[in-house]
């Protein structure tokens, strides 16, 4: 009897569970359909928020940002604050697969000879003061970049544009730059040589407002009253050294309308950065970079925080460079011996654990023309062969090579540790005396630019996703004194290849093969980024793309990665009260 009742109760309860489950599924389905068809919220600039988004009043992001004096891309890049990416509309943008798409320009074409480009602007674009944004603003901006009086610090980037260097050198007037507008919506750019990646270069064309620059001068971008915006956000407050606040730009007519209502940058000084993770844990900021292994290890071992840690590869390569005109590094065998003496796997397992993957070439995985680890064998760890090569070069057992200084550019502890690992490997495997010298930025760049450093380690982080960027720095008379005419020729040929992208890629692969096989540098590792962000941050910008990368560049909330929003942690659950109460958040 008792037994029977027990069974029927069991049956009854299973039935209940089943019904409840079906009801839940049905509710979920309806909820999803409902969410997709009719959003609950529309933000202040008319963008419907995703179904799980918090109300517009809570769409506020707070982040630490480095204190810098300007906010205008074409005034200065290196002294420019984070706002420069979001208050201006570039001609082109990329999506999260790094594919090119339109920005201010909706389409473009190139002449048959590959030298003359025409960009057609979207009609209806405007500045936040209501004035139209036209092709003339882009002409003005690029001229401003080249103008000797503006003394721009990023000029090398635009050198493909016709007469750029001549304008910079004051041999021709500014208005002879190969950029002009035939009407308000048509921009023409002529290049010196064929430059198939010009539209990609122009993802860095955050336009300057001609009328504001003329009226207020160089400092127009430093005050909310004069800082007009053509981008998704507009500056509403800037207390120097303290905070910058941006709000969604109601006058914005471009393609990347944000879900967010407000961005609060809390400024800090890079020389003594504030502790970021404690501020993140105290709910004062919504995301931040994880900068060392101790932090990463602690976060990963913390049950509550480990889900908030995200790591992904970055297009960033660390390498050893040489003065290849002087002994011992004028001998390729010596350079190769160094490469073979370094166990990159060991370094990435220890000193750089979680922050790097071994690299054997300049281009990192996921980058166009990536070599698919083809040089791991020929450049990888082989101490026996390394010793043999060194002996063949006339330095048996390292004899004849004086003590070497390995110069580092103001590196963080993790990279210094890795450099010391390399130091130990060169000592153990090749009997070379190496001294690691980590010097401050200015001293290092002075030596690097004047080619007075014989040996050192330095990184390069990509500017745009095209092989011409990462390989371009190895062209003759550039960053290093490895000059190779065959390499230059291949680079030039690739840049001239406008019609056949796959041939262009194979030319770059060939160029990289020359670079690696001649051991212009010893390529060591590619960096991985690690970040924490709050579980309530959602959006495609935060998700990995098809090949596992994120276009998200973190602290720089770039215009191409603003498609994120604050979501409910769980359906129906609002933000933790303490965040709502936190300074600035929630307030409009």
């Amino acid at each position, binding site marked *: 009897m008792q037994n029977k009742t027990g069974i029927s109760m069991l049956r009854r309860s299973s039935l209940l569970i089943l019904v409840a489950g079906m009801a839940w599924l049905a509710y979920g389905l309806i909820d999803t359909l409902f969410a997709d068809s009719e959003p609950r919220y529309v933000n202040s600039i008319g963008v419907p928020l995703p179904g799980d988004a918090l109300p517009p009043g809570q769409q506020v992001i707070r982040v630490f940002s480095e*204190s810098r*004096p*300007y906010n205008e891309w074409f005034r200065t890049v*290196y*002294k420019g604050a984070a706002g420069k990416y979001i208050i201006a509309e570039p001609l082109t943008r990329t999506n999260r697969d790094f594919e090119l798409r339109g920005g201010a320009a909706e389409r473009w074409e190139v002449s048959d000879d590959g030298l003359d480009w025409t960009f057609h602007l979207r009609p209806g674009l405007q500045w936040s003061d209501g004035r139209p944004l036209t092709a003339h603003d882009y002409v003005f901006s690029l001229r401003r970049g080249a103008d*000797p*009086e503006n*003394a*721009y*610090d990023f*000029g*090398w*980037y635009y*050198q493909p544009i016709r007469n750029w*260097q001549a304008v*910079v*050198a*004051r041999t021709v007037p500014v208005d002879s730059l190969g950029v002009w507008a035939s009407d308000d919506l048509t921009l023409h750019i002529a290049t010196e040589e064929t430059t198939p990646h010009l539209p990609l270069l122009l993802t860095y064309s955050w336009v300057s407002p001609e009328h504001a620059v003329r009226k207020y001068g*160089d*400092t127009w971008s*430093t005050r909310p009253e004069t800082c007009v915006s053509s981008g998704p956000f507009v500056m509403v407050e800037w*207390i*120097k*050294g*303290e*905070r910058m606040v941006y709000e969604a730009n109601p006058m914005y007519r471009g393609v990347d309308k944000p879900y967010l209502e407000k961005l609060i940058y*809390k*400024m*800090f*000084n*890079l*020389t*003594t*950065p*504030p*502790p970021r993770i*404690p*501020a993140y*844990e*105290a709910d*004062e900021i919504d995301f931040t970079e994880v900068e060392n292994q101790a932090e990463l290890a602690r976060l990963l071992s913390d049950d509550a925080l480990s889900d908030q840690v995200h790591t992904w590869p970055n297009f960033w390569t660390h390498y050893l460079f040489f003065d290849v005109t002087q002994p011992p590094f004028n001998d390729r065998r010596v350079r190769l011996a160094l490469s073979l003496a370094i166990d990159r796997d060991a370094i990435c397992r220890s000193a750089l654990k979680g922050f790097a993957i071994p690299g054997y070439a300049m281009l990192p995985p996921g980058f166009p023309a990536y070599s698919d680890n083809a040089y791991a064998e020929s450049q990888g760890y082989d101490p026996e062969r390394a010793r043999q090569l060194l002996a063949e070069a006339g330095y048996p057992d390292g004899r004849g090579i004086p003590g070497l200084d390995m110069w580092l550019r103001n590196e963080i502890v993790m990279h210094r540790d890795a450099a010391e690992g390399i130091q130990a490997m060169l000592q153990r495997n090749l009997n070379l005396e190496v001294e690691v010298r980590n010097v*401050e*930025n*200015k*001293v290092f*760049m*002075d*030596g690097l*630019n004047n080619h007075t450093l014989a040996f050192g380690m330095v990184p*390069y982080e990509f500017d745009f996703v095209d092989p011409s960027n990462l390989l371009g*720095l190895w062209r003759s008379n*550039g*960053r290093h004194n490895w000059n190779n005419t065959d390499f230059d020729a291949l680079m030039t040929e690739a840049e001239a290849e406008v019609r056949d992208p796959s041939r262009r890629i194979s030319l770059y692969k060939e160029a990289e093969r020359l670079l690696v096989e001649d051991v212009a540098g010893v390529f060591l590792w590619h960096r991985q980024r690690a970040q924490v962000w709050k579980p309530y941050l959602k959006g495609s910008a935060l998700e990995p793309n098809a090949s596992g990368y994120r276009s998200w560049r973190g602290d720089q909330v770039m215009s191409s990665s603003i498609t994120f929003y604050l979501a409910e942690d769980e359906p129906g659950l609002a933000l933790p009260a*303490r965040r709502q109460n936190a*300074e600035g958040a929630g307030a409009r």
Partner: protein
Amino acid sequence: MFRYIVYRIVGLVGVLFLVTVITFSLMHAVPGGPFDEEKMPLSAEAKANILRKYGLDRPLYEQYGRYMWNALQFDFGIPFQSPGETVTDLIARTWPISMQLGGMGLAVAFSFGILLGILSAIRQNTWVDYGTTVIATLGITVPSFAISILFIVLFATIWRVLPTGGWGGPETWIMPVIVYALGPMAIVARYTRSSILENLRMDYVRTARAKGLKERSVLFIHVLKNSLIPLLTIMGPMLPGVMTGSLFVEGIFRIPGLGQFFVTSIFERDYPMIMALTLLVAVLIGIVYLITDILYALVDPRVRYVRGSK
């Protein structure tokens, strides 16, 4: 006295001149310049344009001459690291914040320092004295950034009672002021203690006790007054440093003060700021020492400026 002050001020001007010459030559002797390329080398022409814009293409003696000429008219140039404002603007914007922080720090340091000093002197060689010694030693030896991080983790991250940084209401002052005050407080406590102990053995104390004064009156009316004179000596040199901010405390607590610029100006080779800050500190030190000496004469009748046979 007046003559003495005039002599001292004339001397200070000479010192300032020397300081400008030495600083100017040193900062130009260091490799690297304010507009070195960060990533890719610029063309020689582009580099020349930048140098020209800031007058750095001229010979050094001319740059120095121009600087001095302008400085005499209180034009200290434009900071390379923040070219949207003048050096004077920048200092006017940031220095008051450092002074506020420094002033609050000093107030805390002296009030608590003197209190601890008195306590450990009147309870010499008891647990109070030893406890104060431990606190004082910690205050001097533990670096301020270590204490800062500890405070942030405890008060902001774990207990969530204070913000990790920023500069606004009183809640943002508490941690930086305490961190800032610890070192000076420890020094003040140690000086007060030994000075009081020394005074307690003086004849005038015996006299005071002998005429039947209460121990409390002896201590607070007679001993304390005389014991605090040495504090003037240590307060003087402390002032310029404390009033111009600290790189660590300001950096870690995200305080937009002047302290950080002492370091960033050198890293950035920000010549106008390096010159301005060196001059500022030199002037402050000169003035503070002068005032200390004058105060000394006022407070302690035994100290007098004697010149020749007058």
